[in-house]
């Protein structure tokens, strides 16, 4: 039921959210999360996002199905970009719609915590001086954020 897109091009968060509620009058709450590339004090020229084609879609679909099992969602959209992404550009979008605000908030937060640690994407830094900054290390804080959702 969730809409999942893995794409190189940018996305339009507003259009995605509007599509979720178009013609519906039973949606009480819509939460959008947009994750963006930060410049890290102008030391970063870009991120190069590698992904595992096929598994990225499937894994995100599994996580979205889990969110829909846990919360009464009326719609879910997840868009994750890959390739070269510059500071100020979008990386990821999560939209959740529900009749109740807690469900929309919690599901969006859950989806982001899972995407961070379970979706097969890897970020490599391209430094402003042209050098490769290396692969971004996974954060323990992200693992802990995910573990709080364990049943």
């Amino acid at each position, binding site marked *: 039921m969730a809409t999942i897109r893995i794409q190189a091009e940018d996305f339009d968060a507003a259009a995605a959210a509007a599509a979720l509620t178009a013609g519906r009058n039973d949606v009480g709450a819509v939460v959008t999360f947009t994750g963006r590339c930060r410049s890290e004090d102008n030391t970063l020229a870009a991120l190069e*996002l*590698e992904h*595992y084609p096929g*598994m990225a879609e499937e894994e995100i679909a599994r996580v979205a199905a889990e969110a829909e099992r846990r919360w009464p969602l009326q719609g879910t959209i997840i868009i994750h970009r890959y390739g070269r992404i510059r500071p100020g550009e979008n990386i990821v979008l999560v939209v959740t719609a529900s009749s109740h605000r807690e469900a929309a908030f919690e599901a969006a937060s859950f989806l982001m915590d899972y995407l*961070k640690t379970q*979706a*097969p994407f*890897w970020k490599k830094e391209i430094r402003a001086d042209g050098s490769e900054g290396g692969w971004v290390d*996974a954060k323990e804080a992200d693992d802990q954020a995910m573990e709080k959702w364990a049943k």
Partner: protein
Amino acid sequence: MDAAAVKLSYFAWVRERIGLASEQITPPAEVRTVGELIAWLSGRGEEYAYAFERPQFIRAAIDRVHVKHETPIAGAREIAFFPPMTGG
């Protein structure tokens, strides 16, 4: 049980260290789990030893589903190795 060919896929610094995005291999029959496959691959050359030098940082997927190092590899068509993920 006959040994079967399996596609191995590598991502991020695992891919860079090995120098390959994917390859077809047929591991010996005594290699039964993901962890045993990692150990066996580590003996295939310097680049593999480098990629898998810290197995605790290697994540794996069988047929596009996350698995643990204890998971048996029997029946797998594709096994992927990669670092902890940093998407989102």
